[in-house]
C-alpha cells in the first residue's frame, strides 16, 4: 500500500472523484439491491426473509414465463443482430472511404431516435387491424392479415421481429472499423493461394474479428436481457395473456405498481446473475490470443 502510494502518489487523488461517483451511484445501489432481495421490503420498510423471495420466484408461473421470454428474446435477437451487423459491415467494406462513411452514418443515425418513438412505430407496423403496415404488405401479397401483437401466440414473435429487423448501427460501425484495421498481407497471401471472396471472409475476416464479436456479443446480450420499452410500448407491458412479459417489465410492475421492492430486487439479482453467467461463458468460448 505504502509502496503503491509512493510510486503513484497524486494520481490516486485524481481518480478519487470518479471512483466516489461510481461507488455512490453504481456500486452501492447494486449492493442495496442484493440486500433488499433478502428482505420483504415495501416502501415502509421490511423484514429479513432470507431466500424466501427467490423461493417465491421459483414458484411463480408469471416469473417463469418472463424468464423464458427474456431468454428466447435474447437468444434470437442477439444472434440476428450480430449476424446482421457483420454482414452489413462486410457489404460496405469494399466501398470507397466516402461510401463507407455514408453508410456507417446511415445505419448509425436511427440510434439517436428515442426508443419509445421507435417502439410506437413498430406498434403501428404490427397493428392487428388491416391498416397495420405488416398486414397491408401481407394483403398486397395475397395473404390474410395476422393478429400480431393482438394475439398471445404471435405477440412475442412480433416484438422479436421488430428488434431483428432493426439494423444494429453500433455493431455495423464497430465491425466496419475493425475490418479496416485487419492486415492486408493475410488477404494477399490467400489470394495467391486462390481463395475467393467468400473463403477469405469466412477464414480470415470472421476469425480475426473475434475480439469485436466478443465485445458486441456481451453488450448485446446484456441489452437484450434488459429489454423493456419495446415490450412496454408495443404490447402495453406484457401483451395478451402475459405473452410478452420480460424480467425487467416484471421488475418494474412488481416494484412500482405492486410496491414489492424486495421481490423486485430478487428478480433483478436473478437477471444480474444470468448476465454475469452468460458473459463468463461467452468470454471463455470466444476469448482469443490472436494479435495483429
Amino acid at each position, binding site marked *: 500500500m505504502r509502496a503503491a502510494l509512493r510510486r503513484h502518489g497524486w494520481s490516486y487523488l485524481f481518480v478519487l472523484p470518479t471512483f466516489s461517483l461510481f461507488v455512490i451511484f453504481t456500486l452501492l445501489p447494486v449492493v442495496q439491491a442484493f440486500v433488499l432481495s433478502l428482505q420483504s421490503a415495501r416502501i*415502509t420498510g421490511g423484514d429479513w426473509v432470507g431466500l424466501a423471495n427467490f423461493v417465491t420466484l421459483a414458484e411463480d408461473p408469471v416469473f417463469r414465463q418472463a424468464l423464458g421470454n427474456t431468454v428466447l428474446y435474447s437468444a434470437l435477437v442477439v444472434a440476428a443482430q450480430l449476424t446482421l451487423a457483420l454482414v452489413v459491415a462486410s457489404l460496405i467494406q469494399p466501398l470507397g472511404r466516402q461510401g463507407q462513411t455514408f453508410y456507417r452514418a446511415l445505419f448509425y443515425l436511427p440510434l439517436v431516435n428515442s426508443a419509445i418513438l421507435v417502439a410506437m412505430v413498430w406498434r403501428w407496423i404490427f397493428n392487428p*387491424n388491416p391498416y397495420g403496415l405488416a398486414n397491408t404488405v401481407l394483403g398486397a401479397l395475397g395473404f390474410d392479415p395476422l*393478429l400480431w401483437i*393482438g*394475439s398471445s401466440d404471435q405477440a412475442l414473435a412480433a416484438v422479436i421481429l421488430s428488434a431483428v429487423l432493426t439494423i444494429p448501427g453500433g455493431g455495423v460501425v464497430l465491425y466496419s472499423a475493425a475490418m479496416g484495421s485487419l492486415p492486408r498481407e493475410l488477404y494477399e497471401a490467400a489470394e495467391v493461394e486462390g481463395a475467393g471472396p467468400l473463403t477469405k471472409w469466412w477464414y480470415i475476416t470472421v476469425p480475426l474479428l473475434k475480439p469485436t464479436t466478443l465485445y458486441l456479443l456481451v453488450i448485446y446480450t446484456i441489452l437484450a436481457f434488459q429489454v423493456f420499452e419495446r415490450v412496454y410500448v408495443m*404490447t402495453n407491458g406484457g401483451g*395478451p*395473456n402475459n405473452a410478452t412479459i420480460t424480467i425487467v417489465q416484471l421488475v418494474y410492475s412488481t416494484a412500482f405498481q*405492486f410496491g414489492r421492492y424486495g421481490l423486485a430486487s430478487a428478480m433483478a439479482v436473478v437477471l444480474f446473475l444470468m448476465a454475469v453467467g452468460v458473459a463468463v461463458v461467452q468470454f471463455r468460448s470466444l476469448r482469443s490470443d490472436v494479435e495483429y
Partner: protein
Amino acid sequence: MERDAGVRIDRRRFLQALAAVGVATACGPAAAPSATPSGSGTAVAKPVSIEWWRRNYTPGSQTAETVTSDGAVKGFRARNANYTITIQGGPFGPETDQKFDIAILQQKAGPDVFHTTGGDVLKYAAAGQLSEPPLSAAEKSDFNASALTATTYRGKVVAYPLWIVPWFEYINLDLFKERGVTPPKDGNWTYEEFLDAAKKLTFKRADGKQIYGFAHANDEFAFMLIDGGRLYDTAVKTWTFNSAEAVSGLERWVALAKEKVMPPDFLTLNPNDSQARFISGEIAILQRPSAMINVLNADAKWKYGTNWDIANFPKGKTAQTAWGGVGFIAVREQADADKKTAAHVFAKYLTGPDIGPDLKAMTPPIEYWLAPAARTSAAGIYGEYHPAKAKVAKMGSFTYVLPNVSTWSEIDQKYLRPARDAALEGKKTAKQALDEVAPTAQKLLDEANK
C-alpha cells in the same frame, strides 16, 4: 424584594415581547377602524399555508385537473382568505405514486391534503398517515354509502369520498342510423339486445372500411358483473370472482370475441386509441367512463343527441349494474394542528356542495365536477353541466364501486387480466380461467386483510 421578583422583566424578555408585538402588528390587518369593539371575544382567523398534491396538475396548462384545481383554490380563498394553498402536480403514473409513497410513508411529510384512489387509501391508513375526517352523522349520511365504505379502514372513515366514476356505453347514432339499428330506449338494453346491435353494427363499407360494433379500452371487468358476479364477498374476505355468476358474465364477454364484433386488437387497445377510433366512426359502441363526455363535447362536429348518445351497460340476469371507481380527498396526519384543521376545511370544501356553484359562477364558468359527486348534497350540479351528464348522474345508484384492496393491482394485472385474455382468446374456458386465478387472488386478498 418580593414585588420585584414577581414582575421583573429583564432586557431580553422585554425585547422579545416588543418583537412579538411588532410581528403581530405587521402580520395583522391594516389599521382600519373595526366595527367590532376590541376585546369582544371575536377570534381573528390565523393565516395558515397548506400544500395540496394533485395528479396531472400542470401550472398554466388547460388540463381539466389544472383548471378545476386553480378554480377550487380561488373559490376556497374567497370564502377563507386566511388560508393559502399551494398546489403541487405530477403526471398520472407509477412515478408520481412513488413520490406520494416516499413523502407520506417514508418522510412523513409532503402534502397536507391530496387526491388519492383505491388501494392507496388503505395503504396510508394502515401506516397511520391519514387524519380522520371530522364528519357529523348528518354529513356521513350525505355520502354515497358504498363510497363511504370504500374509505373505511378498521371501522373508521379515513378520507373524504369525492366522486364516483361510472363506466357506460357511448353510442354512435350515425352508425346506428346507417345500419337501421334502433338505439336503446332511455339507454336501457338487455345483453341480448346489445349483442344483436353489436353484430348488426359490425360491417364493411363499400370503400373497404371495417366498422366494429363494440370496443372497450381494456381497463375494466364490466361484463363479469352483469349476471351478479362480484370480486369479493360483502366482508371483502373471500374472493368470489370465480362464482357461477362471474363465469357466466365472462362467457357473455367471450361471446363478443367469438362473434368478432370487437376490433382484432381489442386485447391491447388503450383508452386514447379506443376514443380516437370511436370519434373517427370506426367503432359503434364504446365502453368508457364519464370523462369522455368532455372529449366528445370538444368536437364541434359531434352533437349530443344527434351524433352520439350514452346508454347503460347491457342488463344481464340481475338488476342494472355498472362498473365504477371512486376518487378521494385525504388529509395527512401531522403534528401541526393548524395545518391539519385547514386541510380538513379545504377537503370538506373540495367534496362539498359549495364548490360546484362557486366555480360555475366564475368568469368563465368552470365545471368542477369531472364525475358525479359522491355526496348527495353536491350531486345536483354535475347534471346541470350537460344533458349527457344528467343521465350519468343517475348511474351512481347502481354503480359497483370496487372495494379497496391494497393488493388489487397485483391481482388485476398479474393474474386476472391474463386469465381473462386466455378466455377471450378461446385458450381456456371462462370457468377454467377464473378457477385458476382464484387461489392466488385469495392469497393476495388475505395478505391485504392482514
